[in-house]
């Protein structure tokens, strides 16, 4: 029980990743696939944050006396997540603009019907 409690955040973030992947694999509508991609990326960002998280931790700044390094959250994963969010925004913007263009050409966003190119 305690193990489960300790790893709640891990289970939650990996669950989000799995949900995102499931949506991307199963859904037919491109917008839903992009939403799945978004959830997938959010799950990964949370996973990164969890890696450096300490419960009741503080920011890693020695602003007051009595703060010890052991009670500080690891700042590196947060910096990574910041980068990763920016990358995610770029990918998402590009994906949505491509979806608009795809709809102009095909008149549908159903991925099962968009199959001009084949193996």
């Amino acid at each position: 029980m305690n193990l489960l409690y300790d790893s709640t955040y891990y289970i939650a973030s990996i669950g989000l990743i799995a949900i995102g992947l499931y949506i991307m694999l199963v859904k037919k509508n491109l917008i839903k696939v992009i939403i799945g991609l978004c959830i997938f990326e959010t799950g990964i960002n949370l996973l990164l944050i969890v890696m450096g998280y300490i419960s009741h931790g503080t920011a890693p700044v020695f602003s007051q006396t009595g703060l010890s390094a052991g009670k500080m959250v690891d700042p590196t994963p947060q910096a990574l997540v910041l980068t990763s969010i920016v990358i995610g925004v770029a990918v998402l913007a590009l994906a949505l603009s491509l979806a608009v263009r795809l709809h102009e050409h095909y008149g549908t966003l159903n991925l099962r019907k968009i199959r001009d190119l084949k193996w």
Partner: protein
Amino acid sequence: MVVLLIVVPLGLAFAIPLFGFISKRVTGFVPVIGMLFNLVYSLLLLPFVLQKPEMVSIGGFPPPFSINLVAGPLGVGLSALIALVGLAVSIYALGYIREGAQEKYHVLYLLLLTGATGAVLTGDIFNLFVFYEILCISSYALVAYLGDRSGIEAAVKYLIQGSVGSGLILIGIAILYGLFGTLNMAQIAQNINSVSSLSVFVPLVLLVTGFGVEAAVFPLNAWLPDAHSSAPSSISAILSGIAIKVGIYAVARVIFTIFGASNTFHFLLLLGLITLLVGEMSAFKQSNIKRMLAYSSVGQVGLIVYAFGIGTSAGIAGGLFQIVSHALAKSVLFLAVGYMIYRTGSMAISSMNGIGKRMPFVSFACVIAAFSLVGLPPFAGFPSKFLIVRAALAQGDVLFTVLIGIVLVGTVIEGAYFFRVVQALYFRDSDKDARLEKAPASAAVPILALLILIVAFGIYPDFLMPLLNSAASELLDKAGYIKGVLG
């Protein structure tokens, strides 16, 4: 000052809109300048890094605490190759890219090359991811540059598959950071044996799968034929010549340097072999020339992965030679075929009948590059394939002998479909009048330059060998890499 190799193209890329205010015509020359600088600078650096790899730590902190660049023979050699192909294609684009948002094309093009250069030079795994993403995002956008039906569809496929791959890489990096508390590749490599092999196995699989999407190894290559055939020809050349190679480099770096996973070599062998056969057989039945070339790239990637899977210094040197010869030959093929498509307006192989008489130079270039890919002497493809076969036979194992036999069967299939193109070019009469067309300088110069290199490396492979051998030993010598970075 290795940083200049990344900073100059990055700065120029964002300066292009400013140049656009002066004149739209000028913007096309900016990538040429950037890549020329990178080529010259990498070649100047090469003699120094062959003596001793150059380390740069950003911000002045020693390596484990900062992002660092590792300019070894492998990194600088690949950055020279990237700059060379990038230069040739940017000259070609001066005449080829005439419609649409030219400025944005050039910005994205330079960013793509910046990402590729950064990815091969960095010594920090998250930094590798960031540069890899710069490469990927700009190539998604460039595939869709023409904005036509097939281009958009291919870009969507590429984007979805590529982003899942990038996501997997990031999960792998997160797990590695959780295990070791560092992002420095050398430090991870140093501590990799301190944890149980099972917990290292998960990030290894995630990273290899993620980078494998860009490298187009077999089950992950569904995007490649669409993206390479639907993109503008200049972009197809850069994707086939450079972008895949960065994926292969990243896979090799992860397997050899970070994880030192010598027990995965047999898996690599098998993966390479399957990729090779799938690629070559799919290429054989294509009737669209660009799709055929794209599938041929899949086959060549398989050969490179196979060579890396041999796991000896000679095998890796052969694989690296194959990277060079494929980058040169495939970019010539895409550029030459791109010019033919531009003139004839059709991508079908049947529409190329009799073009040998209409466009003698471009057809000649096509034939030389095809011969080089098949591995005929005296072109660059011959020594690379020869080295791989020799390295496999030197293992003296029945397994390797059988597998190299199958690889050679793949080469025969490759010969069959390339000779079909040659036949169409020269030995079939076209129904149209055979009016002689001279290729413009912007197409002829880069193709000619790359052809000269193909022949030069084919006749005198020893010119490349010292570089390739020390690059191969850089990949294999894990302890040396760690010592070089951490001191």
